[in-house]
């Protein structure tokens, strides 16, 4: 934080060499300015110069802040990609587990359907195929190829 502040001041007042000395010197002039303003009316030219300088300071500060935020966002998204692509094996396991889960759940529903209604083997056949379709939908969704049901609207 201290370094960041002195960096901003450094860009604002590039003439001076020693940042620390210069910052304290500037702080000194600011306080004396304020004091003299309190004691007696200053000419308006001085005041205008001060407000112009303050304005410049504000502009540069917001610019620096924007830059820093942008950099932080960039590094965030880069980190996210890195962790997402970190392991191809994890990705493969993820997609295959999605497919298998769909097929298994479909088959289980079909088997239960057959047991309850004794329609064997039609329930198993139909729900197995539906489960396969659901598994493919799952894979496409987790791979980002198909949209989620909410986004599709």
């Amino acid at each position, binding site marked *: 934080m201290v370094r960041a502040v002195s960096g901003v001041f450094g860009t604002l007042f590039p003439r001076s060499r020693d940042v620390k000395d210069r910052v304290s010197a500037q702080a000194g002039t600011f306080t004396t300015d304020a004091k003299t303003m309190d004691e007696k009316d200053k000419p308006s030219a001085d005041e205008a110069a001060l407000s112009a300088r303050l304005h410049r300071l504000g502009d540069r500060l917001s610019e620096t802040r924007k830059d820093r935020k942008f950099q932080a966002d960039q590094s965030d998204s880069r980190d996210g990609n890195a962790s997402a692509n970190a392991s191809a094996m*994890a990705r493969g*396991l993820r997609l295959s587990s999605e497919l298998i889960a769909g097929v298994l759940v479909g088959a289980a529903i079909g088997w239960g359907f057959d047991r309850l209604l004794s329609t064997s083997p039609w329930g198993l056949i139909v729900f197995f195929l539906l489960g396969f379709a*659901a*598994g493919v939908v799952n894979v496409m969704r987790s791979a980002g190829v198909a949209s989620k049901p909410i986004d599709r609207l």
Partner: protein
Amino acid sequence: MADPVEQFEIHKIFSLGHVGGQEIAFTNSSLFMFICVGAVALLMLGGSTRLVPTRYQSMAELSYEFVVGMMKESLGEEGMKFFPLVFSIFMFVLMANVIGVIPFTFSVTSHLIVTVALALIVFLTVLLYGLYKHGFKFFKLFVPSGVPIYILPLITAIEVISFLSRPVSHSVRLFANMLAGHITIKVFGGFVAALGALGATGALGATLPFAMTTALSALELLVAFLQAYVFAILTCIYLNDALHPGH
């Protein structure tokens, strides 16, 4: 060569009694679950609360901010009521995975029953909260709008099966990753022992699987973090459906 699946065996430490003719025992799995919870509690409660954090406190704050950031991104501000659930699940899975990488420990998340229990907590939370919040409108999740009426029953059936398959894939993914990783390390470790017994040439050859075991251990540490993250982010994605089922 050592049995690669021996590490997943469950041993009884002491018995807690019988329920319906079934013994309820305190096992090594229960022990390591308690260790995980204790480690998380130690991490979150044991740190200082200074303005300038120590390393230890920084670890706790980082894990908190990580989960908050993840939830804000995927659930938004109103999803923060689920923060205790997601944070508990994330920290428990992370701690269980990381402790499992340490040799001679038991990896809790390499048992399907544990991951299924965690996934079912999430699944039932989504179902019950969705029904409580939206009533029967929650079932619009399964009926996408803008689909021709003659294929709507088919699409709805597929969506329902897709929804029901979530806890399966959610739990199997974590379980399979941990199981596969631990077995792989154990097999390569077995090669080291078997080759090392063959004398000088064997010991020279054993450096190869030894290097592999070292590399795999590092990979396992990465997988431990990654799978905890994946488990938590999927929890957020599923909870998002409870908050905003189709309009």
